[in-house]
């Protein structure tokens, strides 16, 4: 019978906290960059010009339809050879995760924009608004409201995906716990603690999202 001993983890607390800091910081970066990239790709996929639409589509499908773990490894090992640019593990993984997240965000954003009734942009146009004014004043404010639950959901996935950067030796929570597990010979306790740490951050967030959804349903 296995004897659980969580007490042993206490001596690694600074290591864990350090890793957690990297994980959270990394998530903030890839969520912000991913949203930006998703916004650009979404507008690209709705462009009047076919070339732009095609380009956006190629980007979206390339990143949506390949595994993130493969992308991470590819960005760190293959891209430097192809493009001749040297990248730190942090840059490579931030880039890969932002683009990967961006491909999913862009589909959420595009879906939100096209879900707004055509009559809304017609009404804007009839008032004399330019397409840009119609987008920023009329369509986006309504579309963003509809996108928020899905965007939050994708961001939660992004948060968990940061655990994969440990394969490139980025010192996130998972990487640090590997160190602790090897050092303490207590992998079961360590990984249980990691799972609890992820859940402890995400569950309050999901409650927040659910509450937001309910509030939005009321105002519609």
């Amino acid at each position: 019978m296995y004897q659980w001993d969580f007490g042993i983890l206490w001596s690694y607390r600074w290591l864990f906290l350090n890793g957690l800091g990297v994980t959270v910081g990394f998530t903030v970066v890839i969520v912000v960059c991913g949203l930006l990239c998703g916004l650009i790709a979404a507008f690209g996929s709705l462009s009047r010009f076919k070339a732009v639409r095609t380009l956006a589509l190629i980007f979206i499908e390339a990143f949506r339809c390949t595994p993130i773990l493969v992308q991470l490894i590819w960005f760190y090992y293959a891209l430097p050879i192809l493009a001749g640019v040297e990248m730190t593990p942090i840059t490579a993984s931030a880039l890969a995760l932002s683009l990967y997240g961006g491909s999913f965000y862009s589909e959420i954003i595009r879906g939100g924009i096209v879900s707004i009734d055509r009559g809304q942009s017609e009404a804007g146009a009839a008032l004399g608004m330019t397409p840009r004014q119609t987008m920023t004043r009329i369509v986006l404010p309504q579309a963003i409201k509809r996108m928020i639950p899905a965007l939050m959901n994708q961001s939660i996935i992004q948060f968990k995906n940061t655990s994969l950067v440990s394969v490139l030796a980025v010192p996130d929570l998972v990487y640090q716990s590997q160190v602790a597990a090897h050092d303490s010979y207590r992998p079961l306790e360590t990984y249980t603690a990691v799972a609890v740490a992820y859940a402890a951050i995400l569950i309050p967030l999901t409650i927040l999202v659910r509450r937001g959804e309910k509030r939005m349903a009321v105002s519609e």
Partner: protein
Amino acid sequence: MSDTPKIEVRSLRKSFGSNEVLKSISLDVAKGGVVALIGPSGSGKSTLLRCINLLVVPDGGSVRVGDTRFEFGTGARLPDVKTLARFRATTGMVFQHFNLFPHMTTLRNVMEGPVTVRRMPRADAEKLARAQLAKVGLSEKADQYPATLSGGQKQRVAIARALAMEPDVMLFDEATSALDPELVGEVLNVIQQLAAEGMTMVIVTHEIAFAREVADRVVFMRDGVVVEEGPARQVIDTPQEAAMRAFLSHFHRTGALPPATAAS
């Protein structure tokens, strides 16, 4: 000056794919004139209306509203978005399904055009918007969201929103077709009031009695062509064309306007 029509449409053509919706249509609307476009669904009357403010870009012919004229067809360059926007700012449009902005209060809906398009200071725009809301009898609804209004109230807000741009002409695209019968009157009332004030208007409608009452001229369309047109009462009371007679047989042509109007 009133010799030149306010709106002049010449040999307008429009196809959607292989479906030719407008087959060389011409239409004049005098300054202060009210023209009713009637006809069965699919006759092209809504498309014609949408071509007047270029929400639909015609394939050929020309459209002139006031001093602004656009040519379409081979060789003619399509107007750029800025030109289109400036042009549309001078023509008000009211839609069948209201198309109010659901994320803004009634007041903000009416202010949106002046603030965003005409760059009017907020305080001035608010004063203007409140005046327009008062005109359609909805002052007390200024701070409510569209979702809380009845269909008739929504459409009156939509009219106020269009009027806030102080347009030269107003276009109505089946403005009462989506309304419950008892709410039709309050909207027609507002349109009639505009006609009395001398607003130039083109009205696509199925309210034949209203067209007879309010419009100077009636244009009857079928399958993308004008079948019959002339002074409203004459065309509706004594139609010449068989198609027009067949169409009108579905309606009560005369008689009073719906109750709300008759009462006022």
